[in-house]
């Protein structure tokens, strides 16, 4: 049974270094945690709020206390054993959720401090180049299935990225090698969309996208879709929206590859928006969301719908969509920031 315990001012609940598996809940009074900053060694103090648990981490993790808990004013606490504490939080998942947030923030902070200390290291690699490099590593090691995964992912996230052309070439090379190696042919667990191929082998000039290949019919079919898709993406980036739109549409009507159809549907919406056809754009995204409720670009799509309303001067509806985005994405997601900014502008005007 959890016990209610009274602590007098100036007493100590536990010392740093103690092995003690109790969890405390402060009911009333004042408790301060004294610890040394891990980076500077400086002495730090954290005040516990009433209603707050403390001593959780070391109790759950079964390691020595990292701080000294000092009582500043006469205090009442409830003391739990670990099983008792677990019982309480299991019946109140909100507490777990809150703690998860606190802990993950702490973890992030430590990782950030660590990166700062190691900043001269290769740690600060940017994710785009990093992902591409992983693919190259596995390609070099002749682990083609893994190389293919990394390159395909690269193209999914950075379709017009710095290394996209090379990634396409590498995918093709990896597929070819995998076939001659005979063991790790492209696997069915990977979405078929990834069997993209757009040019010569590794030795071909990077810009070549037209050289023909002697590859099997089924592969050619799929590569054609991939090629078409990336061509269209490139048209879009050159602001040739009408041409891009036609290409994306023909991928959708071609009906060959669901992954690319889904991606193209999203791009069609972006084209319509860029062409200022807002009603069409909204209608399009609404249909897309109905067809693919788990579309990877769902939140982005909602942002476009919100923007369409804004363009049509229906700021109320626009705001509703932006607000929905806030609840569906994390605070540091780009779309979340965009939505917040849009709301600020609307509310400011």
């Amino acid at each position, binding site marked *: 049974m959890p016990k209610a315990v009274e602590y007098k001012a100036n007493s100590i609940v536990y010392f740093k270094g103690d092995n003690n598996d109790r969890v405390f809940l402060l009911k009333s009074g004042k408790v301060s945690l004294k610890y040394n900053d891990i980076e500077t060694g400086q002495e730090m103090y954290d005040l516990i709020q009433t209603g707050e648990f403390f001593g959780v981490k070391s109790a759950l993790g079964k390691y020595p206390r990292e701080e000294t808990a000092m009582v500043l004013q006469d205090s009442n606490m409830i003391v739990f054993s670990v099983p008792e504490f677990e019982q309480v939080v299991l019946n109140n998942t909100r507490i777990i959720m809150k703690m*998860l947030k606190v802990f993950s923030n702490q973890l992030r902070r430590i990782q950030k401090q660590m990166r700062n200390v190691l900043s001269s290291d290769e740690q600060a690699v940017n994710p785009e180049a990093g992902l591409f490099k*992983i693919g190259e590593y596995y390609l070099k090691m002749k682990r083609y299935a893994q190389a293919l995964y990394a390159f395909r992912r690269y193209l999914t996230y950075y379709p017009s990225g710095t290394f996209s052309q090379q990634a396409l070439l590498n995918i093709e090379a990896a597929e070819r090698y995998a076939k001659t190696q005979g063991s790790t042919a492209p696997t069915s667990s990977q979405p078929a969309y990834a069997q993209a191929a757009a040019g010569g082998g590794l030795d071909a000039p990077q810009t070549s996208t037209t050289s023909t290949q002697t590859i099997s019919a089924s592969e050619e079919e799929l590569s054609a879709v991939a090629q078409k898709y990336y061509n269209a993406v490139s048209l879009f980036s050159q602001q040739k929206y009408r041409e891009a739109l036609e290409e994306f549409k023909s991928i959708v009507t071609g009906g060959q590859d669901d992954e690319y159809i889904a991606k193209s549907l999203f791009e069609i919406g972006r084209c319509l928006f860029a062409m200022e056809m807002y009603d069409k754009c909204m209608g399009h995204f609404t249909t897309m969301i109905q067809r693919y409720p788990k579309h990877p670009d769902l939140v982005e799509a909602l942002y476009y719908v919100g923007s369409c309303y804004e363009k049509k001067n229906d700021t109320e509806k626009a705001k509703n969509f932006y607000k929905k985005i806030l609840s569906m994405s994390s605070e540091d997601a780009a779309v979340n920031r965009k939505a917040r900014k849009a709301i600020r502008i609307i509310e400011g005007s």
Partner: protein
Amino acid sequence: MALDLSMFDRFAVTFKKNDIMFCEHEPGDTFYLIQSGRVQIVKIMGEVEKIIDILNPGEILGEMAILEEAPRSASAIALDQVRALEFNRENFEVLMQGNPQIALKLLKLFTKRIYDQKRRFMILTLDDVQARVADVFLMLSETQTGADPNKDERVFNTTIDDIAHWAGMSPDKCRQVLNHFATQRRIEIYPDKIVVKNINDFQRFVGSRRKAKVE
């Protein structure tokens, strides 16, 4: 306690042996609870793929994705045919309500990760390179199981590259320090292992350097 997860079947995904479940640097928006099969966590450092961990059924991976979408810090590769439950931030709430045991498990996982990361960080706060290397051995000895606590000698099947990594220095620099320790007869270096003659000696050495820093 065995968890009844049948209600989460709709979140089940399978991976074939050698499939990558997620890749270092790719944006992370899902996390997994392994139901069957093993998963290898690897990281490519320089030109070497390092195995960081091997996870078994019942374990969780990718958990940092629960609260934010940061790039993956390592890759996960299926060692066997793997069946796992896949969750993301959106359905995490459902999972929590349906099975708070998993949430509790996550909470414990985070406490362990925080502790391990802090311990690693402590090494890097030492300015003295020798103390850093010695502290790597202390950290490794703290998690070592089966060592005889009454003996001063400890054996580590660790490579110099690994030690250099934990100590946050180049392998060359690390080799220099280790050679220095070897000439002092504090350690013996073999192709497949490093023997620390007296772990308590390292403990005192690191302790004195750490104190010097605080004062």
